[in-house]
Every structure is written in C-alpha cells, then in structure tokens.
C-alpha cells in the first residue's frame, strides 16, 4: 500500500467537522502528554518512533482497519519513517506534513458575522495552539487584533479581500505566543496599538491604547472602543466592535477565565481580574458576542469552527463568572494553576522587542498549548 502527506489544513477541517481520525503519535511520551492534536472524534496511540525502528509488528493489532490513520511527529521525519514501514505492511496511512511545528502554525480564517453598515468580522483560529486573532473589515480598510507571528496569513487574506490594513492592535502583551503586530504594522504602514501599562519596557514606538479611545476602520460607524480591563496583565484591554462584539483578550474565555500570574503578579492582580469580570463586564449588554484571544479545549468551538458566545450566556454558564465568594475566587486564580506556557518569559521579552530570536527559535519557543486560562 502507500503513504501520503496530509496537510494541517486537512486536519483542521476534520477537527471542525468533527470527523473521525486515528492518530499514531510517534513523539516521546512526555511530549504527547503535554500537547497533541485535539479533535472531538479523534482517537490516539502514542508509541515513540525509536521503539519502532526495528519494525512495526508490535503495534499492528492496535491499529484500526476502518479509519483514516495519521502518523504524527515533531517535524515530519520520524512520521515518514513509520508511515513507510506501515505501508510496507499493507496499510494505507497518512503522515502530517511538517509535523507538530506546522500544526502549531496553521490558522483557519472563519467569518464570524457582518457588521451593521457593511463590513465583516473574521476570526483566525489557530487550532494547534488555541490562539485566536481577528480582522475587522469595513469599506476597504482593515484592523487586525492579536495577530500571531505568521503575518503572511493576515496580509495575504487582506490582499484577497482587497482591503488595506490600517490598524494593528494587541489586547495585551502576550506571554504564550509571539505577536505579529509590530511586523505587520512595519510592513503595511499601519498603526500599532498597545496598552501603555503593558508596554513600559518595550523598545519600539507604538500608539497608546487608553480607555475611551476610538479607532476607526473605513468611513462607516465601526469603532473600536478600548475598554480598559486589567487582570491577566495590568494593561489588558477589551474592545467593543460595532456595539456587537466584545473582544476580551485573555481576560474572559468561553469556558474559563484568564490567569493573572504570567507577568508575575497574581496576588496583586486578582482584585483587578475580579473587578473586570464581576463588575465592569456586567455593565455591558448581555447581547454582546464575546470573542476571546484563546480557547483551551476543542469543545469550545462552535459548529462552524468559530469560538464565540453571547456575554449573557457566559454569565450563566462560565464557572469563573459564578464564584460568589471572593476568597474562593482568589484561591482559584492563584493556587493550583496549570504549568506556565513554554518559554513564556522569553516570549514576553520578544514581544517587548528586547530580544530578537530567529524564526526557528521563535517556532520552538511557541511549542505547546497556550495555558493562559484557569477553570
């Protein structure tokens, strides 16, 4: 039989359409335990490739006969080796092109909805890492929010739509992934906006996002209100777009809330986080559609692959928004936190412009899940 490459895009489609897939992950057990391709109807077998060098006989009876099978490794090499061995045993298998590195970088642009006076809101879903970026489009102009370092995806998408990127914004200084905001702004001449309270140590010029600010896209009434909502970082800012969408950054997610410790000050910021979630957000319309900067689990995806939910629904269902007791809330967000994201200190330094690692290094720094939330 044969073995063929499967692109990240095809895997993404299977995730979104909740298809079945059998994943034979040949990375180390610790890497697999840490981070894998998540799909609601995916099943898994993890056997390190070095246990298969002498042959795949030992696993043949553990492989399904009736499902597509994808061999996955870190970069591709080992999965090709194992896929070839399996094909020699008469199986048809796929290997993941570019491995987990490519999966980590893949993004799916999905339309969230239309804006009042023409224009659209797009969400870019980075399935491998759980990062969400946004593009607001109106009347030939675009704004990008929380862009990842795969800047080509955004500039290419804007070109296809025939829109000019005017503004690039980050809701906060990210700790789990490297922002592409600064380089998109540089490439396109757009203005790069950052909350000043997060940008105390940055070494480049930026436009300061302050509470009450409005950023216009196109010449319609689409405004981005910067809503200062500290918590995850002291400068964290939420945006209300078109009086319809609430971009919450890393403050509020669909099924979890932001962790306040990644800039090192959990104890100090827990009060701010509670104030934002339990008071500031409650003053907003329940009809606003929350668009966060991350998702943690694949169940947070809607049928169409977007990650979006009404604020009112989150007030009813998100556990982190329903902890009456302040001490209990404090405990949730400061104790028993999940491990911190891979290389998060270096990622912060990169986003401040203090260090400039090469692309390969940046890729490595971002390996793994985002881990920005607590549940």
């Amino acid at each position, binding site marked *: 039989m044969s073995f063929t490459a499967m692109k990240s895009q095809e895997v993404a489609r299977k995730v979104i359409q909740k298809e079945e897939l059998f994943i034979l992950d040949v990375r*180390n*057990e*610790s*890497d697999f335990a840490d981070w894998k391709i998540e799909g609601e109807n995916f099943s898994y077998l993890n056997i*390190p*490739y*070095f*246990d298969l*060098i002498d042959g795949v006989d030992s696993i043949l009876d553990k492989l399904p006969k009736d499902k597509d099978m994808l061999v996955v*490794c*870190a*970069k591709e*090499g*080992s999965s090709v*080796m194992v896929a070839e061995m399996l094909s020699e045993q008469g199986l048809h298998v796929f290997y993941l092109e570019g491995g987990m590195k490519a999966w980590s970088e893949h993004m799916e642009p999905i339309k969230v909805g239309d804006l009042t006076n023409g224009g659209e809101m797009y969400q870019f879903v980075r399935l491998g890492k759980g990062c969400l970026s946004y593009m607001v489009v109106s009347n030939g102009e675009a704004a990008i929010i929380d862009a990842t370092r795969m800047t080509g995806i955004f500039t290419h998408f804007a070109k296809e739509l025939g829109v000019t990127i005017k503004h690039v914004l980050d809701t906060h200084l990210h700790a789990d992934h490297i922002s592409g905001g600064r380089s998109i702004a540089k490439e396109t001449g757009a203005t790069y906006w950052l909350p000043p309270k997060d940008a105390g140590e940055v070494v480049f010029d930026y436009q300061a996002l302050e509470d009450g600010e409005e950023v216009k896209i196109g010449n319609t009434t689409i405004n981005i209100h910067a809503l200062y909502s500290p918590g995850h970082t002291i400068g964290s800012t939420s945006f209300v777009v078109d009086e319809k969408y609430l971009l919450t950054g890393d403050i509020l997610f669909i099924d979890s809330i932001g962790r306040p410790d990644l800039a090192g000050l959990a104890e100090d910021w827990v009060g701010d986080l509670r104030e934002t979630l339990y008071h500031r957000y409650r003053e907003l319309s329940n009809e606003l559609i929350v668009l966060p900067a991350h998702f943690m689990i694949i169940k947070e995806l809607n049928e169409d692959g977007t990650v979006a939910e009404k604020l009112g629904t989150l007030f009813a269902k998100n556990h982190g928004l329903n902890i009456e007791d302040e001490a209990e809330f404090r405990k949730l967000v400061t104790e028993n936190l999940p491990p911190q994201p891979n290389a998060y200190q270096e990622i912060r330094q990169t986003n401040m412009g203090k260090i400039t690692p090469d692309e390969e290094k940046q890729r*490595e720094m971002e390996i793994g899940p985002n881990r920005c939330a607590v549940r």
Partner: protein
Amino acid sequence: MEAAKVLDAKGLACPMPVVRTKKAIEEINAGEILEVHTTDKGSKSDLTAWAKSGGHELVKEAEEGDVFKFWIKKA
C-alpha cells in the same frame, strides 16, 4: 571518559540521530560507552528518552557551540 566508539550524527535530522545511535550501540559491549555528537535540537530529548526506554544509562551530556554531545553506557 573513555568511549568505545564515537558516532558522528551531526547534520542529521530526526529520526536519523536515534536510528544511527541504536545501530552503533549494537556494535559495542555491555558496560562500554558510546559517544554521540548531534546538531538536531530534537535529539536532546529523544536520545534521553530512547536511552531510558532501552535501559541504557546516559552518563553525561554537554553542549559545545551548536553540537550536542552524549555519553551513553550500554546496558
């Protein structure tokens, strides 16, 4: 440390460093040491995990510039 054999796996990408290491260790006797040189960053965790799974002892590891060096005692 006296190595019975030195394997140069520099410039090789995954899975080759581990594949070659596995082959090389078959050519030495139990208790002897195999010295491996690699440049692939993934080989660091992979060789460690491989040695552990095969019961071999990773006696020492070092980084010299871009080169990772491992000393593995055969089980």
